[in-house]
């Protein structure tokens, strides 16, 4: 997976039904603002052209005008009208984009961690990290949570962003209308690696999504490759299991770092900082700080061989 092939990253790229509403309102508001800006600039240009003091000025003072009630009413009333229209459109759009959640259960639970994303699909019992999959054409209810500090979940082409606040779960609806790869970044400052806390969202067809979720819900394959077997032993005996979970592995049950159950199915490592290959994974484990300085994963002080074996094990978890 190459992130450079992602769909155009812009708030005007309409990838969801919700963003369609936001973009329509955006153009309308932007249009009004541009008209006002042009009127003000145009008046300024006219004033500069018309009213500079002439060279042969006699030094007399111009006519003193203390005000003009009619003008003042006009430039109060027209803006009142504009903000009233904007106020009504704001309410309508808000209700359409974020209708009451009621008793609906979330389809996706997003948990912001320093500095990666956890995605849970509670209806399927699936937990994964850093790569979100959504089926096109279905309105998904998101619940956004934070594990540590405040984050904000924003896939740019989805339009709305929503903060992840400890102790205050929030909701939003996402109804993708086109398939593709969409990017974002955490957008509430959250510490050292806020800048590379990337969001990667795949919108796929319903059958593709079903295949993907089935694979994620299953236990990972166990490779018989000797390196992988050795790697598994190392993984379970080293401190890896203090933070990471792999479903089906009784040793690896921690939920501090990203869930590695199906890590081989992901395109990137470290929330988008490296392409997911065996070599890259080995390098990452040997010194994560080189690729994501400040991140919470320490240098594991693995030899090249150990790192390779663990990487082979992990890269077989499909």
């Amino acid at each position, binding site marked *: 997976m190459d992130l450079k092939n992602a769909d155009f990253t812009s708030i005007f790229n309409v990838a969801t039904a919700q963003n369609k509403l936001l973009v329509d309102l955006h153009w309308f508001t932007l249009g009004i603002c541009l008209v006002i800006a042009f009127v003000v600039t145009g008046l300024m240009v006219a004033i500069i052209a018309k009213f500079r003091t002439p060279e042969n000025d006699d030094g007399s003072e111009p006519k003193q005008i203390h005000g003009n009630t009619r003008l003042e009413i006009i430039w109060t009333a027209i803006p009142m009208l504009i903000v009233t229209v904007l106020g009504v459109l704001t309410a309508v759009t*808000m209700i359409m984009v974020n209708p009451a959640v009621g008793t609906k259960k979330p389809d996706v639970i997003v948990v912001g961690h320093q500095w990666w994303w956890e995605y849970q699909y509670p209806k399927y019992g699936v937990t994964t990290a850093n790569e979100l999959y959504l089926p096109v054409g279905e309105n998904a209810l998101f619940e956004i949570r934070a594990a540590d500090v405040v984050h904000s979940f924003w896939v740019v082409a989805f339009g709305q962003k929503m903060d992840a606040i400890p102790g205050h779960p929030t909701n939003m609806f996402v109804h993708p209308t086109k398939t593709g790869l969409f990017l974002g970044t955490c957008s509430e400052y959250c510490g050292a690696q806020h800048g590379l806390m990337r969001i990667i969202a795949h919108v796929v067809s319903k059958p593709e999504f079903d295949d993907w979720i089935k694979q994620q819900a299953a236990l990972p394959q166990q490779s018989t490759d000797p390196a992988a077997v050795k790697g598994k032993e190392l993984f379970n005996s080293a401190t890896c299991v203090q933070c990471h979970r792999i479903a089906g592995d009784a040793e690896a049950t921690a939920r501090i770092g990203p869930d590695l159950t199906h890590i081989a199915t992901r395109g990137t490592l470290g929330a988008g900082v490296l392409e997911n290959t065996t070599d890259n994974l080995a390098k990452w484990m040997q010194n994560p700080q080189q690729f994501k300085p400040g991140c919470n994963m320490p240098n594991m002080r693995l030899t090249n061989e150990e790192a390779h074996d663990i990487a082979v094990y992990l890269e077989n978890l499909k």
Partner: protein
Amino acid sequence: MTDSALHPHSHKPVNWLRDVPEYQGILSWLTSIDHKQLGILYILSAFAFLVVGAFLGLLIRIQLMFPMNHVISQEAYNQVFTVHGTTMVFFVGMPLLFGFAVYLTPLMIGARDMAFPRLNSFGYWVYVFGAIMMFFSFLAGGAPAAGWFAYPPLSEKGYLFNSGQNYWALSLFVTGIGSVATGVNLVVTILTMRAPGMTLKRVPLFVWMILMDAFLVIFSLPALNAALVMILFDRILNTHFFDATVGGSPLLWQHFFWFFGHPEVYILILPGWGAISEIIPVFSRKLLFGAGVMAASTVAITFLSFGVWVHHMFATGLGFAPLYIFAVTSLLIAVPTGIKVWSWLATMWGGKLKFTTAMLHSMAFLIQFTIGGLSGVMFAVIPLDWQLTDSYFVVAHFHYVLVGGMLFSLIAGVYYWYPKATGRMMSETLGKWQFWLMTVGFNGTFFVLHILGILGMPRRVYTYPLGMPGWAELNFFSSCCSFILVFSILLFVYNLIWSFYHGQIAGPNPWNAWTLEWLCESPPIAENFERVPVVRSRRPLWDLQFGSGGDGENYHA
């Protein structure tokens, strides 16, 4: 040494700040309770910190010049933007406006000094020590790194355990106390010490805006101070005000902070509006258009600004009703703000414009502030806020308000009142160079950031990945322009110094202006006025010249 210093009792008029007999020697400045000296100290300190803050800003732009650039580490970067923001708001913006307020208010209302001169001095020195305290954190194990609004839990010691965050909170707490003291001082001065005949309807617009500003300070700063005490208790005494794991609430901080933080925006911009409302009429040779409505709209803004704070929290999922109420107030506040822009334009219309450096800055202010105001309206429309908040669009927006608005207007104020304070004119040649460089540098640096926000670049990122469309090019362009902007600030400081020694002698009223401060000598004598005239309009010097008509009462359009 000049004659007047050698012979303090000689009657030669003093026309240079250095020759004022009461201001001789460094001690006369360090121990001063004279509002003019304190005002000048405030403004000089603000410009010193402006240079520091500008270089921190330049460091930010250098780091973001290229994708995956590593001029400074992510840790240093986070400290840099935190200190940049904090410095610019609290150690540049606040002292700059207080400097103008305490220097000009007594002169403009015909008073001898502030109501509480010692409290005035207290406010200044508390600010100086507060600012030093925050910068000391660089030596004491690391600067604060939670951003200028320091959201917990990130600002709690579990996530930022060095002492920088403690210094940050203590420093703002100390300066906050000074600010409230100065606010009270200004309110009392304006309400009780006006010249005979100067009713509240006749105070200059600048003074009126300072009065509103002081109320904003008095009622909003305590919210910040309370929150700072709570975060300090959390960090030092292990309380849990903002710790959600044991029943505290991170959102509580956001409410407290923005209850202060939004009025703070108006605190910063109101004195600039006041300056513009004095400068544009003088260089258009006209009465301020709709002065009464201008004053009333300022009152409206003062009240409304306490009811808009949640628009900084539109993406926190508070639910429809609580969010929508704040959308309505945030939209409404655009109306009185718009009235001001139209009134300034109408003041210029039909005038005889003089394009002095002060006037040029005022005109650029008008356009730039309009852009910043309009992008502000976009944030009031909540669905747009959901798209744009915490992106570089916000960075563009508030720099248009605070640099393109506040800084431009107060630099205009410096060009306008410098002759009064020092007795010397500022160089118009250097001034016009500085103006054009600053206008190009400022707009070049910050306009493209709107587009970066639209393209999805979040604010406060220490770097950004390769291959994001447009990001590298726009960031590079912005960074190049930021060098021009910083250079123009240095040129401005140079002009301040050069003109002090080489500027033309100003005389009492070089601009032929109409408010009371222009009746004083330049610089004013220590007592300000030898005698104060009875005031009969908003423009007492017009009345002195023409006998009447200061409020344009002979002319109705």
